[in-house]
């Protein structure tokens, strides 16, 4: 079990999200950086879809109340166990009473804003509508349907006896699968239904100008700031299903990218959709940072998804190899 000692706002329990609940108005939720959460679980030998803690405001501190094997992925937050510095994207063992501290994300080797704390066995909170992810809007899932606060205690799920896990880590996807455009982090975008109804100037700005992540950005959506995008004529669409990644443009012309807590439906016109396989990149873009959009095709988007899947397969292979070696020692 771990006890949260200190946390900023909006740390939540997340897994890979809900499936099949959109028809009740329940969005998917799930980790903003799904690759980082999956990698943390792979390091620990957990089910890849096990729940972890998503942390986005620092410092964060937790005390281990039992011996525990854990992993930290996502942003490099200068983690330490008591006073011992911990490498990121690495598996660690803690003894009962030790204190884990995460500081501000370092922006040196790769730029990121969210860290994932994964526990061997996964964070054990009840499944609600098939998932352990916190549904903030509906106030269910995760721990009591809310963000974590000091004093909260979280249990790890049952796991086989774990030992000898020190000395193993992964190279983060931000380093293995970099994507930039004009020197800025980038995400690939497929044009959406109303794309053709925007002006040439809007198309030009979308693809060729940087977009700043404003402070009004959260797990629901990223509100971006840049050259306003205007349609040739005003567009009113009927409410329809949307997915995380949809780039909506309200009449003020400033785009909003729907993120993992996205509503399952909306009505603002859609100029494009950040492809599912690149959403983790956007999920790591810090507030105030600038990003670029790259126009992509269906075939390329599918290929990028396969590239991510291959990265996870390779991570699993390395983790299995390491565990095999540890056992044979």
């Amino acid at each position, binding site marked *: 079990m771990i006890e949260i000692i200190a946390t900023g706002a909006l740390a939540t329990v997340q897994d890979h999200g809900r499936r099949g609940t959109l028809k009740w*108005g329940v969005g998917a939720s799930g980790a903003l950086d799904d690759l980082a959460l999956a990698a943390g679980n792979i390091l620990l030998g957990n089910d890849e879809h096990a729940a972890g803690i998503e942390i986005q405001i620092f410092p964060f501190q937790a005390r281990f109340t039992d011996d525990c094997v854990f992993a930290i992925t996502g942003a490099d937050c200068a983690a330490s166990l008591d006073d011992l510095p911990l490498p990121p994207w690495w598996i660690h063992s803690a003894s009962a009473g030790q204190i884990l501290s995460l500081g501000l994300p370092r922006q040196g080797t790769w730029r990121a804003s969210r860290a994932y704390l994964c526990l061997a066995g996964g964070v054990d909170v009840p499944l609600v509508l098939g998932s352990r992810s916190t549904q903030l809007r509906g106030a*269910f899932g995760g721990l009591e349907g809310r963000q974590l606060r000091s004093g909260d205690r979280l249990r790890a799920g049952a796991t086989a006896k774990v030992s000898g896990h020190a000395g193993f880590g992964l190279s983060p996807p931000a380093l293995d699968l970099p994507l930039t455009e004009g020197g800025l982090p980038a995400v690939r975008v497929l044009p959406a*239904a109303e794309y053709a109804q925007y002006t040439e100037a809007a198309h030009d700005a979308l693809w060729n100008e940087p977009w700043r992540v404003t402070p*009004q950005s959260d797990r629901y959506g990223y509100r971006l700031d840049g050259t306003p995008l205007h349609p040739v004529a005003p567009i*009113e669409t009927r409410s*329809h299903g*949307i997915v995380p990644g949809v780039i909506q443009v309200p009449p003020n012309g400033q785009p909003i990218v729907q993120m993992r807590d996205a509503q399952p439906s909306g*009505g603002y016109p859609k100029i494009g959709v950040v492809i599912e396989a690149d959403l983790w990149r956007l999920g790591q873009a810090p507030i105030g940072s600038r990003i670029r959009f790259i126009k992509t095709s269906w075939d390329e988007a599918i290929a990028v998804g396969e590239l991510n899947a291959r990265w996870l397969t390779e991570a699993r292979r390395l983790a299995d190899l390491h565990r095999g070696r540890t056992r044979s020692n």
Partner: protein
Amino acid sequence: MISDQPRISTLGTSALLFEAPGETDLVTQERIWTLAREAESWPEIREAVPGMNNLMLNFSRPPGSCKPIEARLRAAWTAAEPMRVEGRLIELPVVYGGDGGPHMADVVAHTGLDIDRIAAIHSAPTYVVYALGSHPGYCYLGGMDPRIATPRRKTPVVSIPGGAVSIGGAQTGVSASAGPSGWNTIGSTVMRFFDPALDSPALFRPGDRLRFKITEVIR
């Protein structure tokens, strides 16, 4: 936007959006419900999610090409008969205007009607639940009088409270919990719409009918 042919577009690699042609109406929606039931049985589709005269098909995994599914969708739409649903009738008490209706002034300004008239027009019809969406338990309603249609807000509001009765374009609905919205809130109601512990967690289902009853109009 109005044409005789349905429009099909992609939502990234996650889903397809099918939009029925014509003005928003109930018979089209009843065909959407039929199409949803049919499409949900296709192996590529994880979930079929009805919207307002449209349908989102979420993929179990992205197909190599969308063409075969698009062709099947068009054929299934041509064949789709309206699904008749014996829905329940539910009455919701509403306080129009005041603190619970912070955007009533915008609807007044846009329509040129006074608050009493807007409340009377809004509470007159028996609405049909076309679809659920937006947030847990929220329902989209069909049947609003076009005289009180008001465009969605230029900038969405960061949070409106649960129970907010609002107008977005030619649609109306009731929020089930606090959260962001681009609609104009004209009143408020008190009702529990969603319980995640239930097998069928949402109070309303497509095909249910709903009436707004005026408790008070705050001018």
